[in-house]
């Protein structure tokens, strides 16, 4: 099960999303869950006790959006629904979906 191409993400209200493992690895948090000596790594099922179904759905959509566009330039922006924007922002922070940190000037 753990080497399956797909993993399952579960929201706190019980929605399950089956996602391509490679796409989900955009998230550092999920990467760490699947790598470490955790139950998630063995079962390939990640539960998120703080993320609602609709929000997780959008996150999964983002995974695939990101995966499909990973080698492309000039990618159109994904649509973010305004009503779950803040929740999504929290989820993005939790999942480590930040842009790669640029080296900053020391000063």
């Amino acid at each position, binding site marked *: 099960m753990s080497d399956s191409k797909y993993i399952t993400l579960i929201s706190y209200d019980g929605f399950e999303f089956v996602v391509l493992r490679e796409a989900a690895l955009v998230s550092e948090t999920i990467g760490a869950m699947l790598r470490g000596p955790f139950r998630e790594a063995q079962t390939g099922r990640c539960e998120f006790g703080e993320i609602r179904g609709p929000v997780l759905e959008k996150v999964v959509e983002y995974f695939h959006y990101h995966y499909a566009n990973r080698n492309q330039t000039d990618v159109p922006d994904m649509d973010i629904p305004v009503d779950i924007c803040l929740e999504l*922002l929290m989820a993005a922070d939790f999942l480590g979906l930040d842009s790669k940190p640029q080296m900053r000037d020391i000063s």
Partner: protein
Amino acid sequence: MSRQTRTVGCRIMGPQSALTDFLASHNISANQIRLDAEARRRAAAQDNQEGQADAAQQQLLNENGDFDTPSPGSDEDEPVVASTGRVTRGRSAAQVTSEVERRKKEKEKHAIDKIKASKKFQKRKRDPDASDDDDDDIVRALFNERAKPLPGQMENCAICNTRFTVTPYSRNAPDGGLVCSPCGKELAKDDPAPKKKTKRASGGPVGARRQTQSRILDGTYHVGGKSLMSLCIQTLAKNIDLAEDLGDLPPKIVDKIARKLSKHRLLNPTTLSLFLKPSNQEVLVYDGAKLSADDFYRIFHSVPELKKLKVRNAIHFKDEVVEYLVDRHIVLEDLYLHGCNLISEGKWIEYLQKKGQPLRSLRVYWTDKHFTDAVLAVIPTSCPNLTRLKVCHNQAVTGEGLNHIAKIATLRHLSLDLREAIHPDVYVKLLTAIGPQLETLCLTRVPELDNTVLDALHMHCRNLKKLRITDSELMTDAGFARLFTSTWSNPGLVFLDLQKCRQLESTKPRENPDGIGLCDEGFKALMAHSGKTLQNLNVHGCRHISSNAFEEVFTADKTYENMHKMEISFCEEVTDFVVGCIFRSCPNLRELNVFGCMKVKDVRVPKGKILVGVPNARGMVIEGED
């Protein structure tokens, strides 16, 4: 109107166009072409008039029910359009109408055959979406496109056959021809709602290409989509008026939102409230232009534990606000003010004397006259914990102020950008006093500094990580080489900016007999000393560094792992080869600026690297693809 009657070639002509000459050399007369075209137009106009008469006749016939009478054949040689007018005369109205119909059909068939053979049709046919059934539709569409009369002409309605004037809004009938406006309205009712054009998602009012270029120059460009966080912040900033509270977002994200809002100039008294949580320790306002003094009071009384305050464009941060700040129990450790010209000298002194004790960092940008030597004089005694001092774009501080700075023994980071010319000796004295513990030294726009300052750096500085000396007109290559010799006990620098340290001599710009500015030896010495640790190097405008020096520094066996960004604009000797060597030697380089390096022509840029400023027509930026 026949050709024989015309007198071609017997006219006095003015100057001719090149095309006319060319045509004349091939025995084609441009005038003839023009006259022919005029003739055709005239004939068409005549036909129109006749056509109106036809219409009247037709109506008459319709009433008589005598419409379908077959007609005898007619002379095929005459062009249809031009002839109708003449031929009609002397024949019965019925004959005329059916003949016109027949000719119209014939002409149409001819035209359709022609279209079928044309390139345009073949091209459309190759379109994968089009099946064979569509062929006729395509031909029909092309034919209608061609045959459509121009606006302003008269035409018979394809449905009710009445005569009407064609306008740009005239609709096509389902089976060819145009319809009059009442019939058009009927047609419009039957039409399903027009398909909405699918809008392209990216780009928007600014073109996608332009946006990409702008993102590259902003340094926010990367391959692939934006991160989910940026997308959310973008959406949030667009709809910030809907947000009542940012909730428990981590400070890092709140800061990002603040930056985004300020970038769009959306920070105003209402949106400011989102960032004022009582438990916060820092408030960062990147654009305070819309805030009034009352809003600043609000910051102080709603965030009682404030430690770090940053306000850019702090126009209304004035004496009253400082007074309020002094009276409150707020202990600021970090104060960053930009453009606060309404604070008087007296208030600065009062603030520093009363609240200077905990202050660790003081940064003051863009002040005209009130942040003075007298203010700096207070710092050594009243700010015992100050480690960072920045005074930028300041018009009041002179050498006396620098002498006061020299007394701040705790200082680690010092940035000065002063408008007053100050003698190098003052800087030497400053470095002698506080040089040993300095980690950052930025001296921006100092044309009067000379080698004595470089020697003082060499002598006294042990901990420098970031060094900036710009616009010096007196420092020499030998001076830089002396600074970066191996005997300098300072470890390698991380950030070095020596832009525009070069000779300024307009009469003999190429010659540099005294070796003024950063040239070969200095460049080699600095890369030998700091190359391994440097992340950011700026030698913009040091135009006497030769290509040999670059090639020697960036040979195949040398790598500079840490180098992240390099700016070598206006170094005239930089060639394609040098740029290639730089990419080879700096595996982690992300961005290289080569504005004004005219010898850079056609470089292959490795994937993921950005080369900015190549002087070619393709644009200014090349993002590596291989």
